[in-house]
């Protein structure tokens, strides 16, 4: 294996992030938080005293809906769609070992998506700070913190999707189904299992970093829910990321790609 092939793999993976319909879907998704902020700002102009709450948008949109769905769109596009379209073979038959292809999928795509998410968060912050009330005064450091949290979560999600893509035959159904149930429905149910969802741990990380661990107005609907510590949440996320990354690399090494003829 040559270094130029590895370089090409990184470039190629990055190039694919900015192509096709999925880019548009991601842009629409990432535009939602700034748009909501803009709406709130416009309303605050009309009626003095309407608070524009940047943290609320981050908590509910940037680190929840937008984050999970962006990861889902790209996660599926990285492996499942490639295998289904029949393009996966070209990349796997290159000069880079397969584990490296899986690794590049996750480690190249997640910083780029994190950058896009950061842009979205920064735009939200910028728009929200037009309004006099409700914007945290910690300055741009809060953006950096949010971006960090988002990139951690994205890495976990992408690793999971890459793993599912290589490991399962019905990879789309498995990965999307799991994420929908575990990450969307589970955090809405008042059970202890919500402590083990990526969404919750991400937001707990965020809670500790930006709200000093105070639950305050967040999670208030949940009765008897103990917020894990920063250490617990970061441990959970890093273990999940490492686990799925490893499993994904192993799965990539063992994935057989049948043609459409033999697939049934």
């Amino acid at each position: 294996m040559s270094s130029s092939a590895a370089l090409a793999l990184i470039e190629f993976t990055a190039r694919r992030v900015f192509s096709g319909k999925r880019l548009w879907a991601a842009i629409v998704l990432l535009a939602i938080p700034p748009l909501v902020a803009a709406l709130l700002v416009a309303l605050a102009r009309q009626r003095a005293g309407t608070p524009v709450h940047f943290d609320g948008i981050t908590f509910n949109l940037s680190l929840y809906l937008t984050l999970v769905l962006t990861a889902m769109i790209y996660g599926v596009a990285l492996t499942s769609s490639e295998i289904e379209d029949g393009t996966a073979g070209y990349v796997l038959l290159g000069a880079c070992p397969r584990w490296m292809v899986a690794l590049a999928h996750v480690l190249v795509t997640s910083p780029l998506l994190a950058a896009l998410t950061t842009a979205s968060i920064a735009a939200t912050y910028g728009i929200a700070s037009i309004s006099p009330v409700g914007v945290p005064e910690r300055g741009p450091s809060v953006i950096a913190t949010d971006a960090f949290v988002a990139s951690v979560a994205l890495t976990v999600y992408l690793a999971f999707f890459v793993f599912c893509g290589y490991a399962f035959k019905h990879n789309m159904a498995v990965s999307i189904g799991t994420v929908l149930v575990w990450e969307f429905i589970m955090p809405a149910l008042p059970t202890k299992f919500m402590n083990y969802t990526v969404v919750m741990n991400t937001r707990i990380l965020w809670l500790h970093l930006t709200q000093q661990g105070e639950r305050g107005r967040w999670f208030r609907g949940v009765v008897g829910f103990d917020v894990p510590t920063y250490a617990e949440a970061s441990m959970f996320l890093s273990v999940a990321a490492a686990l799925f990354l490893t499993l994904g690399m192993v799965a990539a090494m063992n994935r057989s790609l049948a043609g459409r003829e033999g697939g049934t």
Partner: protein
Amino acid sequence: MAIVDQSYQPWSGDLQPRRRRIGAMVRVGIRQAYAGLMAKILLLSTYLMVFGTIGILFIASTFQQSVAIVSGNNIYRFYLGSIFPTGILIMTLAALVGGRSIANDLRFNAVSMYFSKAITRTDYLVGKWATVSAFLLSGTLVPALLLWICQWAISREEISAGSRAMDLLALTGHSLVIVLPIAMYALALSSLSRNAFVPGILWVMTFFGSIIVSGILTERVEEDWCKLVSWHNLATRLGEALYEKRVVKVQALGSNLMPIEGTMPYPWYVPAAILGGITLVSALFVLWRMRKFEGQE
């Protein structure tokens, strides 16, 4: 001995009008929608839940307990108006069945069969709409009917036959209000892509997104229109308007249970106009997309 010629014979006969063709399309489509494993599991769990509820209520009634949820038209209103399980269930079913209905036709090229037959784009759209709606009704209307019967059986109030009939109409209307816009919107998304999961994700995104954004807005702005942003609120508000307003006349266990009240002060035609608008725009979008796809192989 008589030998009957069983080889290929020419056929001639009268052809039926267009509405019968659409009817056939719907029948075959529904059969196909039920073929999916996921859809079966989801529906089955819903029915288990509904029957479980009914069972518990029957047990309660054998102990001469009157339960608040059985009084008035609470029980099916509650079922149809709640976000969990009904809202989530309908969302998932629509993502599964609505999402793939046109996308799979494009991907497996069934459109070239449909449009080489004597149907127009509008017929196709109406057929698909009816198919997805009818399928979704099995997750709303049918359980609601079961609950209506259950209410009739065990509630302790005196309800006139007219009121019962009105309730029946209302729950049918409520189910349609929930299902029809969702089905059309899912079809619009479905015509976007050949890949069935894309429309599914987009629809889930719309549903959750609208609820979350509406939640943020409601909390921040505290204005009434913020509630209109949520898809679920719209359908519930419009559905609520259909029910007969009457006072519950019986003292029941747990009577502090909140009946779903129309918390949105807007008249019924506002959500109706919004949902109708979404449906219309979606329909036009599908027609426009199919115009593009009709030209392909």
